[in-house]
């Protein structure tokens, strides 16, 4: 656009404009020099500001998550770790991450599915404070069975962000969907909008809560808590900008799928080894 304009314009005007632009440029440089003296050196690299996170530049990362359902043993260490790391309500009805069990009995077309809010599993845990799967299928004619960890998909086009009336939930430049708990009004429209049931309501704070991929950990070079404690590498996390990161290799070496692709949300949690009924 600018080029075309320039060609059409008379020379004198062009020169005038160039002079003006130069003046503006000099002014900006001076301002920049002044700013660079008064502000920490960090902001020099690029004019666009970045959040003040020590040792972390969100422009350099593109986070993604992988789940290998063929490896999951349903031990629920991830669920407990997440609750402890993130202070999620310790009951069987609020989760940032949970694990589903799919069981096909012989002759069944449909899976029997259960997870942590299922009364049988609550009973097996002894209370809603702890989590485990009961062993209800140990004597059943099981044809096929597997576990599927679930968490926020940190979608590329998140429906939850779309419907937030205040901008309390948003997508960061490095691909994480976060919630500003001090700005959320607690309308729960985002809870409705998430097709994956990944959002829960923190009744104590009156705000919506969900998985952040442990943003406070990954920005410090750590793994999310659930990945840290997964004993069997069923959970994989990393930076897609790094071709050698665990997640890049996971996506490269497997045929991965995502949940409910028809919603158009474009999830960033990639699954291996799930079945037709997993959604």
């Amino acid at each position, binding site marked *: 656009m600018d080029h075309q304009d320039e060609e059409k314009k008379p020379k004198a005007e062009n020169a005038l404009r160039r002079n003006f632009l130069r003046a503006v440029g000099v002014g900006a440089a001076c301002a920049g020099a002044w700013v660079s003296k008064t502000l920490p050196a960090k902001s020099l690299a690029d004019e666009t500001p970045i959040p003040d996170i020590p040792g972390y530049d969100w422009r350099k990362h593109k986070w993604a998550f992988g789940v290998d359902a063929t490896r999951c043993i349903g031990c629920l260490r991830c669920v407990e770790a997440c609750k402890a790391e993130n202070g999620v309500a310790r009951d069987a009805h609020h*989760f940032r991450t949970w694990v589903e069990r799919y069981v096909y009995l012989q002759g069944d077309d449909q899976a029997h599915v259960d997870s942590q*809010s299922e009364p049988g599993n609550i009973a097996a845990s002894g209370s809603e404070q702890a989590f485990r799967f009961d062993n209800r299928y140990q004597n059943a004619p099981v044809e096929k069975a597997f576990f599927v960890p679930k968490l926020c998909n940190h979608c590329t086009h998140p429906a939850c962000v779309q419907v937030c009336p205040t901008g309390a939930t948003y997508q960061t430049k490095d691909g994480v969907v976060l919630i500003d708990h001090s*700005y959320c009004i607690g309308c729960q429209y985002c809870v409705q909008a*998430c097709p*994956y049931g990944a959002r*829960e309501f923190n009744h104590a704070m*009156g705000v919506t809560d969900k998985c952040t991929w442990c943003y406070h950990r990954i920005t410090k070079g750590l793994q999310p808590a659930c990945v840290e404690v997964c004993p069997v590498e069923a959970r994989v996390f990393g930076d897609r900008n790094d071709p050698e990161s665990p997640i890049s290799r996971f996506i490269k070496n497997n045929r991965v799928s995502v949940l409910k692709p028809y919603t158009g949300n474009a999830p960033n949690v990639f699954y291996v080894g799930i079945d037709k009924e997993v959604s």
Partner: protein
Amino acid sequence: MIGTLAKAAPYVGYVYPNETDIPWSVLIVIYPYITGLVAGAFIVSSLYHVFGMSQFKPVARFALLTAVSFMFFVPMPLLFHLGNPQRAFNAVLTPHWTSAMSAFSYVAGFYVCLLLLEIWFAFRADIVALAKTKAGLAGRIYRLLSLGSDDVSSRALAIDHRFATALAIIGIPSAGGLHGYVGFLFGSVKAREWWSSDLMPIIFLLSAIVSGIGLLVVLYVAYSKARKVPADESVLMGLAKTLWAFLLVVLLIEGLELLEMFYKRLEGIDAVQRLIEGPIRYGMLLQWGCSVGVLVLLSVLILAKVRGRLLVVGMTVAGIAMMIGVLAMRWNVVIGGQELSKTTKGLLTYYPEILGHEGLLAVAIIFLCPFVVLWLITRFLSPWEPEAGKEVSS
């Protein structure tokens, strides 16, 4: 225990664990219901103010006051429901326009202003007259409302009339927008099988209008009784015909939506069927029973040219049944949508609290408030034509 739900919703089949904490309570049933009553009442006043249907003249101003009384309480259920109501203004400060909900404060705020202005123009002559006659605190309020002007010349009144008409013309799309927006709020949620529908805004709008007309019928009859004047038959017959027309379209569209859903039989339709046969079956019976019943009743009243006491009784029954039917419809949509799990493998059952800030008692109190406010406003500004009352009583 902090952070723990007192009662998780029971379910059958498989639901995501977070779904057992049902996000939107009975408060969000009453919210679109109240909004709908506003839209319906406003449409009736517009039928006179814009479309010049003079049979509605006796209730036109009353309809406006009804609309504003209910409009005042539209935000109430929302504020009660918010986890942090003190932050409600965040949605006004930084409205996130991709969200239908961010428009609420602006649409509702605009609509309240519009209603107030419309009322002001409609009542200005009365206000000026009262400002001159009343003394004390009431007189001072009337004088404040008259903005210190006692200009009721025919020229001024003509200008007033032009403004009022202009506002009413803006008001119709606004009322439509206000309620179509509520429908959009639900219809655009693609995660919910039972909500996600392109027809939702129009269904909400039309059912809003029928519920509002129903409310107006009931209130008009009640006020006539209280004022000891007979209800105007031409008003009632006019309302009957309007209600009949809108109701027919509502039933058609709602029926078509269900038909299409079950004809297409897309994934998840089995779950929808189980929802209709399960958690919301009484709601559906109430919604469809009332709607069809009212349509039949109205047809009889109109065809048989019923008059007198029978018309009043018939219309009152129709009005109440319409209000119940639409309330059931709101429940079926708002609660039903959440009772159908996003997994489409399970159904939840929502049991409302009785006490508590999201309970039935709170809802009942919120719903009673507009009636009280309406009563106060009509005492302050009488919407009735004084000479008409005198004629009848003399």
